[in-house]
């Protein structure tokens, strides 16, 4: 196989995050380093009531009232982010060869809000009143299916789910599809809308959610991140603006415990090393790390120790979750977009809300917005179930 076939260009970006609707608003918020966490009225009866919501997201205005009504929020976010990414890439779905356009998106849960609302209908009013839209609204695969319908993308189409690594896994899988020549363009990324009373109660009962203190857990966020990926040669041939290159992907499983990472950190270490090998890069080449950095003691200690082993005295490291909260299955996609912006603009965003760094975490945490050239950025994601994925993103 042609060795340059694996060179993938990032030609379009789209974001819907708690920092705002759109790449510009989200990036400004992340660079500003202020947490978006706030008390959430929809969680009034829950033990933990903090969340990071997307501000000013009006699905009816953005998608039309009837279309919005028939879709769960996890699809709303993705359609809006995908539209931005396609416009950014200069691709017009009215004129493209849709059969060569794939969609690979990640989601941890699917349509949680729809599921919970219809479960209430079942209990309160009976099975015969349950909406016929329940399944088509909540099935996780509808994320990619609805994206295909919206834009006429008729190539390979799938949703991957590796919990909080889903977005990263999706982007890596998309890169493999391009390298194998199965399509020419992929809309890759992730979307999540899991801030519901039931799921947040579940996270709280696990002890995963932050109640107040540093490093005591995460704050759940919602939103989507979408990247337009093409083989580098194709992107150059159509004179597209190449914003960055996706040069490496590595994945692994801990095979250890249903939620806790393997304390030895061999899983995330293997994913990072595989991604660097795939990128044909040395650890010293990496100029910035967007860590998984969930602020749970388990994750941060294990990830930090693995980072120190792979990249001793390593580069400036950020957890953008300090600003956005943890977007779960969308997190890796949103963070990949931030890595593209970092290598493009030579800006390393700060880690917000970190006042008491765990003494066992020995990495160079970026605490202020730092202007510095970054040739290679590495983004980590780890999911419940022990699923790990790493991406290496290079300056164009």
């Amino acid at each position: 196989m042609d060795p340059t076939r694996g060179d993938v260009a990032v030609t379009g970006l789209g974001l819907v995050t708690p920092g705002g609707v759109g790449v510009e608003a989200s990036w400004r918020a992340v660079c500003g380093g202020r947490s978006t966490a706030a008390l959430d009225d929809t969680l009034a009866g829950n033990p933990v009531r903090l969340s990071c919501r997307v501000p000013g997201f009006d699905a009816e205005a953005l998608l039309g009232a009837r279309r919005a009504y028939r879709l769960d929020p996890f699809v709303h976010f993705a359609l809006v982010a995908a539209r931005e990414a396609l416009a950014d890439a200069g691709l017009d779905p009215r004129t493209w060869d849709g059969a060569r356009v794939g969609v690979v998106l990640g989601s941890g849960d699917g349509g949680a809000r729809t599921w919970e609302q219809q479960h209430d209908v079942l209990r309160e009013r009976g099975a015969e009143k349950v909406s016929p839209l329940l399944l088509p609204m909540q099935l996780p695969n509808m994320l990619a299916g609805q994206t295909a319908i919206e834009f006429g993308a008729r190539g390979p189409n799938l949703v991957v789910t590796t919990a909080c690594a889903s977005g990263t896994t999706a982007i890596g899988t998309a890169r493999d599809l391009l390298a194998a020549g199965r399509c020419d363009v992929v809309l890759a990324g992730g979307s999540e809308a899991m801030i519901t009373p039931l799921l947040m109660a579940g996270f709280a009962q696990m002890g995963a959610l932050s109640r107040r203190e540093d490093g005591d857990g995460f704050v759940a966020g919602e939103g989507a991140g979408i990247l337009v990926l093409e083989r580098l040669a194709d992107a150059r041939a159509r004179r597209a603006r190449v914003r960055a290159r996706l040069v490496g992907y590595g994945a692994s499983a801990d095979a250890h415990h249903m939620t806790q990472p393997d304390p030895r950190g061999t899983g995330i270490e293997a994913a990072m090393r595989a991604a660097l090998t795939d990128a044909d890069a040395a650890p010293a080449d990496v100029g910035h790390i967007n860590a998984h950095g969930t602020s749970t003691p388990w994750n941060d200690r294990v990830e930090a120790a693995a980072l120190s082993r792979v990249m001793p005295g390593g580069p400036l490291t950020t957890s953008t979750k300090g600003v956005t909260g943890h977007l779960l299955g969308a997190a890796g996609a949103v963070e990949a977009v931030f890595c593209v912006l970092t290598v493009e603009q030579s800006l390393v965003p700060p880690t917000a809300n970190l006042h008491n760094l765990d003494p066992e975490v020995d990495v160079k945490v970026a605490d202020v917005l730092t202007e510095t050239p970054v040739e290679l950025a590495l983004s980590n994601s780890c999911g419940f179930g022990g699923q790990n994925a790493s991406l290496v993103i290079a300056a164009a």
Partner: protein
Amino acid sequence: MSQQFEQLKDILVKNLKVAPELIISEATWQDLEMDSLAMVELSLMLEQELGVGIADEELLELATIGDLVGLLEQRTAAV
């Protein structure tokens, strides 16, 4: 317009988010972008809001909104 037309329009606009300007007597289900899933929803809502039982298969066979209004007039008169 009849009371039944106004009641139906209310359900289509408020519950199913159909654009109000599309709802005219001559409109077909296709004009309103109403598929077979939407027929099941509408059947449930007619029962709940108006107390009129019309199965989704029966709804699908009606050519226009005007035909449904006619059927609603018949069934509500018969009650």
